[in-house]
Each structure stands twice: as structure tokens, then as C-alpha cells.
């Protein structure tokens, strides 16, 4: 008992011991498989109400872990003098819990990929409209997956390749990833510049008072944050640069603050930033309310 308490308050209660780690890890993985395989028939055999009860309980317990970890005090040195004051006993469980979420996400990736491949295989087999695109997708998918998986395994020393196969793998991966995928991404990204022009043209058309204010404000900000704003203010209009000197009169103070860069900054940081923060507050509160409804299984939308 004496040995258990220091171990419980030690940092690694949620991690496997270093000695025989491989054995423990294998046992944990096998145990998880048995649990999941056993759980599926149990869940299927249960009536919907019983299944819902299990889901509600698991959801509540999972949420409770994160809530309790946040609210429990971290400094327990008054009771356990040797304890780490930067975390409570639940803190080390947070990362493993997040790893579980990642694992579920990884399983879902397989499901998503299966759905994608099934759809395009069906397009090809049934010769649906534009089935040629599906052929391109399937070939690209297979080639990229093969090279990518092989390359990752080789990097992790899990696949030993030497000579020509190694060079083919490295060169092939570079061509597919660096010279094709990354470039295609960049091409798509660069399209946004053109879309911004067409969207801005529609947004800035002066149709109403609001659109006129938007147009005027946008022009001031756009000119104010580029060197042209400084050129117009200081060279053409001859406005004084920098803050007004101590004890300057009202006229001087006004002259020092009506240059375009200052006005643009004022619009960005005094008008725009508080509005954005207000939106963020609203979004945060909305997210919190939604999280509470999900945690307590009060949300009936898709759950």
C-alpha cells in the first residue's frame, strides 16, 4: 500500500512502465481488440434504449475526465509534499485520451477512403458520365498511397531497401509529392487571388450607404497599410510623421494623427479588433453551450 500511493501521485500512472514495455503494450493492444470485438455484438443485441444508455454514460464519463482535470486543484503539496505542483492526478490522462480520439479518427480515415474508392470504382464499372476522371483518381490514389506508405516505412527503418529500389522510391516520392502535389496545392491557392478580385468588385460596388461606407473604409485601409499611404500623407500632403510632441496644442495633435497609416491602424485595431473579439466571445459561448448539451446528451440533432 505504501508503494502504491507514491506511484499514484507520480507522473506516470497513465503510462506503461519502462521495463517490459513491449509486452505490456502488446497486451494493451490485444485487450483493446478483445474489448471492441466483444462490445460490437453486445451493442447490436441491445435494444435502442439500452444502446443509448451506454452511449450517454460513456459520453458523460469522457467529458467528466476533461472537466474534472480542469477544475481539480493542481497543487496538492499540502497533502503530498513531494507531488508535482504543475498538474493533478488526472492531467497525465489527458494526452492518452486525446490519443484515443486520434485513433478513432485514423479508423475513420479508412472508412472515408473506402467510400471514395467505392464511389469511383462504381463510376468506372458502370461507365457513368465522366468516368474517365474516376480512372485518373484511382490511378493517382494507388500510386501516391504506394509510394507514400513505402517511403514512411523506409524513413522509420521498418522497410530496408538498397540500391536501385531505394533510388526509385526516393525519386518517385519526390516527383509525386514535392513536384506534383505541392505544386498543385500552390496552383489552387494562387487562384484565390483572382477570386478575391471578383468578390471584392461585387462587395465594393456602391449600391447603398452601407456599401459606400465599406468601400471608403476599405480604400483607406488598403492605401494606409502600403507605402503609398505614407507617400501621400508625408510627401504629397506634408503631414508631420510620428506622435505629437509632449504638450503640443490640439491642432498639432490632430495633424499628427490624420495621416493615412495612423487612420488605417486606428480602423484595424480600434474599430475592427473589438468587433472581431465580440464575435469570438459569441462563438466561444455558443461552443460551450453546445458542448454542455452534447456532454449531458441533451442535443438530439445528429446524436
Amino acid at each position, binding site marked *: 500500500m505504501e508503494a502504491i500511493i507514491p506511484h499514484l501521485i507520480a507522473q506516470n500512472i497513465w*503510462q506503461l512502465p519502462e521495463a517490459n*514495455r*513491449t509486452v505490456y*503494450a502488446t497486451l494493451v493492444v490485444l485487450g483493446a481488440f478483445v474489448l471492441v470485438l466483444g462490445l460490437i455484438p453486445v451493442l447490436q443485441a441491445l435494444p435502442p434504449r439500452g444502446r443509448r444508455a451506454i452511449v450517454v454514460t460513456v459520453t458523460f464519463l469522457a467529458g467528466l475526465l476533461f472537466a474534472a*482535470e*480542469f*477544475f*481539480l*486543484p*493542481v*497543487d496538492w503539496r499540502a497533502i503530498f509534499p513531494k507531488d508535482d505542483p*504543475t*498538474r*493533478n492526478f488526472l492531467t*497525465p490522462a489527458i494526452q492518452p485520451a486525446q490519443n484515443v480520439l*486520434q485513433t478513432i*479518427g485514423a479508423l*475513420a480515415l479508412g*472508412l*472515408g*477512403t473506402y*467510400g*471514395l474508392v*467505392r*464511389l469511383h470504382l*462504381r463510376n468506372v464499372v458502370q461507365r457513368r458520365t*465522366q468516368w474517365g476522371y474516376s480512372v485518373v483518381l484511382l490511378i493517382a490514389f494507388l500510386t501516391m498511397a504506394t509510394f507514400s506508405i513505402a517511403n514512411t516505412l523506409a524513413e*522509420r*527503418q*521498418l522497410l530496408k531497401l538498397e540500391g536501385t529500389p531505394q533510388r526509385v522510391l526516393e525519386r518517385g516520392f519526390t516527383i509525386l509529392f514535392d513536384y506534383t502535389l505541392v505544386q*498543385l*496545392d500552390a496552383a*489552387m491557392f494562387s*487562384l484565390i487571388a483572382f*477570386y*478575391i478580385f471578383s*468578390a471584392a468588385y461585387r*462587395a465594393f460596388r456602391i449600391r447603398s450607404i452601407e456599401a459606400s461606407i465599406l468601400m471608403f473604409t476599405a480604400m483607406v485601409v488598403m492605401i494606409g497599410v502600403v507605402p503609398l499611404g505614407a507617400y501621400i500623407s508625408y510627401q504629397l500632403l506634408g503631414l508631420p510623421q510620428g506622435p505629437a510632441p509632449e504638450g503640443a496644442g490640439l491642432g498639432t495633435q490632430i495633424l499628427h494623427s490624420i495621416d493615412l497609416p495612423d487612420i488605417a491602424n486606428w480602423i484595424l485595431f480600434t474599430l475592427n479588433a473589438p468587433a*472581431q473579439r*465580440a*464575435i*469570438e466571445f*459569441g*462563438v466561444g*459561448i*455558443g*461552443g*460551450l*453551450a*453546445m*458542448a*454542455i*448539451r*452534447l456532454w*449531458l446528451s441533451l*442535443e*438530439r*440533432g*445528429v*446524436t
Partner: protein
Amino acid sequence: MKVDALFEWMATGSRCGWAAYQHAQDNWFAAIMIGLIVTAVLVNIFRARAGKQLYIRRIPGLDAIDEAIGRSTELGRPVTMITGLTAFGVVAVQALTIFKYITKQIARFATPMRLLTGDPTVFAVAQEAISDAYNEAGRPDLYDPDNVRFLSDRQFAFASGVAGLIQRERVAANFMFGEFFAESLIFAETGNMVGAIQIAGTVSFTQVPFFVAACDYTIIGDEFYATSAYLSREPVLLGSLVGQDIAKFLFALTAVTGVIASSIVGTKHPFIKLLGQPGGWSEFVNFLLGGK
């Protein structure tokens, strides 16, 4: 050796320091605020469940959903619903709740639909949600699993997939709800080019200007979370919405108090630190007890 390397690789992700985690003890004031918000939300949910009539203001963008579906039905062209790259979480659940409502409307008129997502977990849940929507609308025969598509989890591969689909199928209505990044304008402008009615709602405030410029209606900020309450008028959701409004009032009150107090006593005063800085609670308690 290979097995050891595999375990080493698997273990890398779980090594993380926990000093960076935030806790209630950092500033109990924040924890008290969270407690008040949760109480406000829960109390109003139970009030609404008990039959209290709650008011919700009109949101034009949401009233236009039926109009957009009607137009798609008349033209016989599909409706697209895009979750973006939203990872599975509260935003995705909210987006899917909205899409479920839209699908129920679509099912009544047998309008074709496509739900496009860039997250595999969202894809798995979306398939179930859309299938449920057709069942609840009494048209399970119309559900085709191929209409819910995971395109890619790579940002611009997903963007090109969506843009291509919108162009090829000449969609008549395009709904974008979720979390969006730089790809938002690609979707919205492509939809605009094919003449689709577009309604977007996002929590990503940096993308709001793009949607405002390119879409017919935009749902901004916390209106996104009000959408399901607005569409379904379910007591739980309406009550939660009233709780959110009380929470917003609490935040506004804190901000105004902070502004007035910092103007009077300065920003270094323990009371100001209490309102939003780590360690502010202990400093304020010390100040109250007569310490410095």
C-alpha cells in the same frame, strides 16, 4: 529491432509536458464565470422544457433555406452541403444538425443532394445523419450513400474537388456550414459563377468577409449556434440560446467593469488582474487580506 522502432514511433506522440495545460486554479474567477455560464444554460434549458415560451429573433439567412431548396427543385439541379475541413467536434455536430434539417426538406421534394466533407470522422457521422434524415422524412428509398462524399483531407485537394463538382453538376443551391479556411472563397466564388443561391455560416471570423462578399446570405458568429434552435424550435435548444444570451451579458458586464476600473485604478491593480490574468485570483485575495 523493427518492433522496437515501431513502439518508439507510436510513443512519440504521447510525450507531452503538462505545464502548458490551463487549470481553474490559475485564476478561479475564470472557473466561476464558466460555472455561471453553465448554470445559465442549464437553468434555461429546464425552464424551456417546463413549457416557458421563449422568443427568438428572425434570421433572414435561415428563412432563405427553403427558398434555395425550392429553386433547386424547380431547376432539377442538386443542392450541395459543405462542411469544409471541420474536424469532428461541436462545430461539426452543429453543421450536421443544420444539414440534417436541410436534407429532411430536400427529401420531401426528392431534390438531388451532395454532402461534401474533408474530414473522415465527419464523413462517417454524416452518412448516418443523412440516412436518418431520409428515414425521418419517410423517404428512405431516396438515400444514396454515394451522395455523402469524403473528398480529401488535404486543403486544396478538397477545394479543387468541391469546385469541380459545383461546376460539373451546375448546383442550384450551395450551403456552407462549419469551419473554413483559405478555401472558403474558392467554394463561394465557384458557386457564384454557376448562379447558385448560397448560404454560408461559419465560426471562422477571418472567412466571414469572403462569405459576405460572395454569398447571398451569411450567418455570422454565434448565429451559427442559434441555427439549429431557429430551425427546429426545440425547447432544449431555445433554452440553451437564452442561457447563451445571459452569458454574453455577463461577459459584456465584465468588460465594461474592467474598462471603468482600469481607467480609475490603472491596469496593474489586482482587481484588473483578477478579471483575466493567470495568478490574478491569488493576487486579489492577498490584496483583500491586506497584503500587497
